[in-house]
Every structure is written in structure tokens, then in C-alpha cells.
């Protein structure tokens, strides 16, 4: 049924359709609306047979989820940003134990400086934690991907993160076709755990594994993620059969076949990028990575093989080296001579505008980009601040200096 609703609400409805048995809720912007809505759905009885638990931290949220999943319950939680870091230990643990928890990440930056706005640093901080990471482009996909996520998680006995841009998607109100319960039930059978805490058949879960078997455990985890590269498209096909939409899979492409320049990105920014591409005449295509973990090396390489250049456009970066997604894409492109440019944009919620994109495209098609480009970087401020740092031993907080430079701090102090 088509509804004009907030993305968070759509996700809550999708999760509800998956008949979750345990939901752990802890507020953190910008995912909070999801668990708020789920709380209302459980309390009103619209989700039956479900334990909704207001926990005391993200660490507890995922920990409770680990417990409930290990005890055989279909388990859901959501987090973002600092919350993701606070639960980091449990994130690794959930995947290590092979527990099919589904978690929404309302993507947001990580402080300090504290910043509540969107980028994808939080999901990226956990990219190597052994979870399957699926990024969605819009709220319809967000809804659909959650339904697929449970199926993928339970098929592989691995946890799945559904990553959606904070605010941009979580708070956007737009038309979403919310599936009906019958369809979802047909697609998603009840959870049959691979291992379960059961007095009838006792097991010890979470043994200490020494050097003699640890490598093997890790290798098996890697192989399982590789298997997911076959399974994720397969489940997306199943989904298409029932729901008539392509919402998942490993990647999606726009005009990559005859493009000279292909922009590779993750998440909702693809919408603005496509608009910008449509508004100009160069042969530019786009590729969106939907499954970041496992990383579809083959599929990306194959989609980009005819491009003259690749521009990886990402809302995160690894301080001290550069783009995170770009690094992965480069691995996919290794052995080819196709240059891969990195563009870092949208950090801490900075708007990504068509105007800036047009400038970027112009530079890109002329191969006039640096290896790492920070879009819309206020170069003057940075230069001044760096210069000051060089001069002073103690320059104070970088963040404060930049704000002072922009007049914000002074303005605040004078008013």
C-alpha cells in the first residue's frame, strides 16, 4: 500500500511485517524515530508476540539482541554514530557468534567534534566487523531491504546492517509502497536458528579459540561472506518475484555501459547525482554499491571495465590515507589502467548540491581531479588554521578556531 510517510516510519512498518520477536531500543539521532515507532507498534499490539526492551545503552541494545538471537528469537535493533562505536565490541561479537540480528544504521558522523548530521563514518567504522552491510538509496529501498535483510541474515546465520542516510532518508517524508503481511510471510519464513540455547540440547556458545583454530574461524567467516555474494542477488530475485521491485542485490548502475566517467557511490546521494548527470551532456554514468560487505569485487570490476575513469564519491574517509570506498573500488579495479579518483563529500551533513556536482563533473571529465578531492572544502579557512597551528604550539581546539574564523563563536559571545 502506497503511503506518504517518514522513512523511519516506513522502516518500522517493514520491521513489523517481519514479525520480530525481540526489539532493543535506545535513542540516538537520527535513528530514534524508528524505535519510537516500533515501540508504539508493539505497545498497541500491532506487533504481536514481541518483547520491546528499552535498554540503557547501545552496548546493551546489541548485547540484549545477542542474547535473544542466541536463544532463537528474531531480533532487531537500530543505532547510529557514537552509538555504533559504543556497541562496537558487541558488533564484532554478534558476527563472531554467527547471530542473524538485523540492525538499522541511521548513518551519521562520528565526533569529536560532536556532529549529529549525516555521513557514513559510523557504518564504515564497522566495515570489518564481519556483518553484512547493505546501503539503501531511498526509503522504498529502506523498507524493502529490511525485509530482505532478515532473510539474508537467517540464511547465512550472520548479522546484517541496513545502512540508511540519517535525516536525508530517516526524516524524509515520501511515498513508500509498504508491502502487506501476506506477501512478507510468503517471502520470509519463521526463523530457524542454526544454533540455539536450549535445555533439551545444551551447547556452549562462545568458546575461547586459540591460535590452533582462530585462523580457520576467520577464514570460514570470510567464506561465508563470499557465499553471500551469490545469496544476496538470489534473495533479491525472490523478492522481485513476490513484490515486483528490485530493491536489493549487490550493485545498481545507471548508464554505465556507454559512460566515459562513472561515479561510484553509496546510499541516498545517488539521487542528487543522477539529477545532476541528467542536467549535463557529458557521458557520465553512476554505480551504487548496495552491498558494501561483502564487497562485490567482480560485479564492480565488470560494470566499470569500459569506463575511462572512475570517480568514487563517498561520505566518509580514513584520516591519514583517504577514501574508504575508493580503496575497495581500487581493489576491484586492480590490474586495469582506469584511474580511480576519490571525492570526499557530505561530511557531517554538509549539503551535496547539484551546483558543486556540476563543477566536479567538469573537472572529472578533464581528468582535472586530484587523487583525493574534498568537495566544497573551505580552503581559505583550512590554510589559515594550519598556518596558525604551525606558528603556535597551543592553538586551542581546531573546531573552535574554524568557527571563530567563520565568526560564529564571536557572534555567539557578543549576542
Amino acid at each position: 500500500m502506497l503511503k506518504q510517510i517518514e522513512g523511519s516510519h516506513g522502516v518500522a512498518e517493514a520491521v513489523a511485517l517481519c514479525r520480530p520477536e525481540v526489539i532493543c531500543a535506545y535513542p540516538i539521532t537520527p535513528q530514534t524515530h524508528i524505535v519510537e515507532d516500533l515501540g508504539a507498534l508493539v505497545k498497541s499490539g500491532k506487533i504481536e508476540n514481541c518483547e520491546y526492551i528499552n535498554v540503557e545503552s547501545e552496548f546493551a541494545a546489541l548485547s540484549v539482541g545477542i542474547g535473544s538471537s542466541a536463544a532463537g528469537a528474531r531480533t532487531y535493533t537500530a543505532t547510529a554514530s557514537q552509538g555504533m562505536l559504543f556497541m562496537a565490541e558487541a558488533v564484532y561479537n554478534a558476527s563472531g557468534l554467527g547471530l542473524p540480528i538485523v540492525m538499522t544504521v541511521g548513518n551519521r558522523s562520528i565526533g569529536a567534534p560532536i556532529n549529529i548530521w549525516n555521513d557514513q563514518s559510523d557504518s564504515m567504522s564497522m566495515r570489518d566487523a564481519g556483518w553484512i552491510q547493505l546501503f539503501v538509496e531511498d526509503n522504498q529501498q529502506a523498507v524493502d531491504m529490511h525485509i530482505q535483510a532478515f532473510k539474508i541474515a537467517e540464511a547465512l546465520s550472520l548479522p546484517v546492517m541496513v545502512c540508511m542516510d540519517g535525516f536525508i532518508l530517516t526524516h524524509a517524508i515520501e511515498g513508500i509502497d509498504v508491502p502487506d503481511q501476506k506477501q512478507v510471510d510468503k517471502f520470509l519464513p519463521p526463523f530457524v536458528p542454526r544454533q540455539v540455547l536450549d535445555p533439551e540440547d545444551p551447547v556452549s556458545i562462545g568458546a575461547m579459540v586459540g591460535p590452533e583454530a582462530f585462523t580457520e574461524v576467520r577464514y570460514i567467516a570470510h567464506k561465508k561472506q563470499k557465499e553471500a555474494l551469490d545469496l544476496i542477488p538470489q534473495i533479491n530475485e525472490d523478492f522481485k518475484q513476490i513484490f515486483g521491485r528490485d530493491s536489493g542485490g549487490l550493485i545498481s548502475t545507471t548508464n554505465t555501459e556507454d559512460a566515459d566517467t562513472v561515479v561510484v557511490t553509496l546510499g541516498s546521494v545517488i539521487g542528487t547525482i543522477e539529477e545532476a548527470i541528467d542536467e549535463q551532456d557529458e557521458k557520465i554514468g553512476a554505480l551504487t554499491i548496495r552491498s558494501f560487505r561483502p564487497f562485490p569485487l567482480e560485479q564492480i570490476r565488470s560494470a566499470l571495465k569500459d569506463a575511462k575513469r572512475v570517480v568514487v564519491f563517498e561520505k566518509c574517509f580514513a584520516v591519514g590515507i583517504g577514501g574508504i570506498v575508493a580503496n575497495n573500488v581500487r581493489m576491484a579495479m586492480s590490474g586495469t589502467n582506469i584511474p580511480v579518483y576519490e571525492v570526499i563529500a557530505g561530511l557531517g551533513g554538509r549539503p551535496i548540491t547539484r551546483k558543486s556536482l556540476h563543477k566536479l563533473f567538469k573537472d572529472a571529465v578533464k581528468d582535472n581531479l586530484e587523487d583525493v578531492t574534498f568537495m566544497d572544502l573551505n580552503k581559505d579557512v583550512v590554510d589559515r588554521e594550519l598556518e596558525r597551528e604551525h606558528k603556535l604550539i597551543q592553538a586551542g581546539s581546531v573546531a573552535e578556531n574554524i568557527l571563530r574564523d567563520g565568526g560564529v563563536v564571536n557572534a555567539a559571545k557578543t549576542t
Partner: protein
Amino acid sequence: MFQVRIHGRGGQGVVSAAEILSVAAFIEGKHSQAVPSFGSERMGAPVVAFCRIDDKPIKLREPILEPDALIVQDPTLFNAIDVFAGLSKNGYLLINSKRSIGELGIADAIHLPDDKVRLVPATEIALKHIKRPLPNAVLLGALAATTGVIKIDSVIEAIASKFPGKVGELNIQAAEAAYKLIKQNNQEELTC
């Protein structure tokens, strides 16, 4: 695509206004997208919300930089921020005020045809009907009357879905009152 930017303060229902507007468009079978300007808004702080309306799916995710219509729920904002930024030369401007453009001291900032600028005593209307100073629904009624981008019936239906019951009814009354007032003013302008 028609883009509306709504300015106000936290607690004035700015985000709800964008949502109601998007729902109204949805009711008419259009594609629409409402997004709050994202922040940790507190009561009283300046707030912005956006709404896009189109006949085709909306992919654009950037903030509304060049609005086709600008709703200012609180004229005191003129002192705080540049609310008129990017307003298209043919754009609409709705301001919640009993005063005139001149009295508000913003005449220099506005380069719009007169028929695209409407000053609406929205708070007064809201107090009359809703008994609370919530100008958002009132201004949506005025927007329907001023721009025609959305039908008043759709706005009413959207308000009813957002606020079922008494609150919705009162807001609907207020929106209708504003709609009528603007229509009446338009008539007067045409006749004079």
C-alpha cells in the same frame, strides 16, 4: 517540480507543515518529498523545512536552495537569518504578519511581483480558531490560495490525517479561514 521552503521556530510546527504539504500533494497523486532541515532543534530556535512536489519521482536530496515558495512563520526571523536566500524571481512569499512589507523593513530584500507576496495574520487566525499560536496549518491554507500548487481540499485531508480529531478540525477551520481571506484579498486586488 515545485519547491517550498518553510521558515519558523522550533515549536511552531514547521516540520509538520512540510509533512502536511507533502501529504496533500500525495493525496493529489503527485510525488512529493518533505524533509526537515536537520538539526537538534530546541523550542524557539530557527527551523527550516522543505517540501518538493513533482509529477515524476523525486530523486533530488539536496536542501531547497532556490524555493518556488517561501513560507515565513515568524517575521522575527528576518533579524536572525537570510530567509530570502535563493528565492526565485517568480517565487511566492507568505509571511505570518499583520504588518506590511514596509513596516517589516524588508522591502529592500524583496524583488517580487506584489501578487506573489502575501502577508497573513496567521497567528491571529490560529489563536481565533485553534486557541494556540500555531500558524503552520493557517499558512498552508494561504499557500493553497496563493499558489494553486495544491488544493485546499487536499490540505484539509492532509491535516485531518496528521491530526485526527478535534485538533485537526480546529486546524482545518483555521486553514480554511486563511484560504478564504487570501481568496477574498485576491478578489479585492483584481477588482481595484
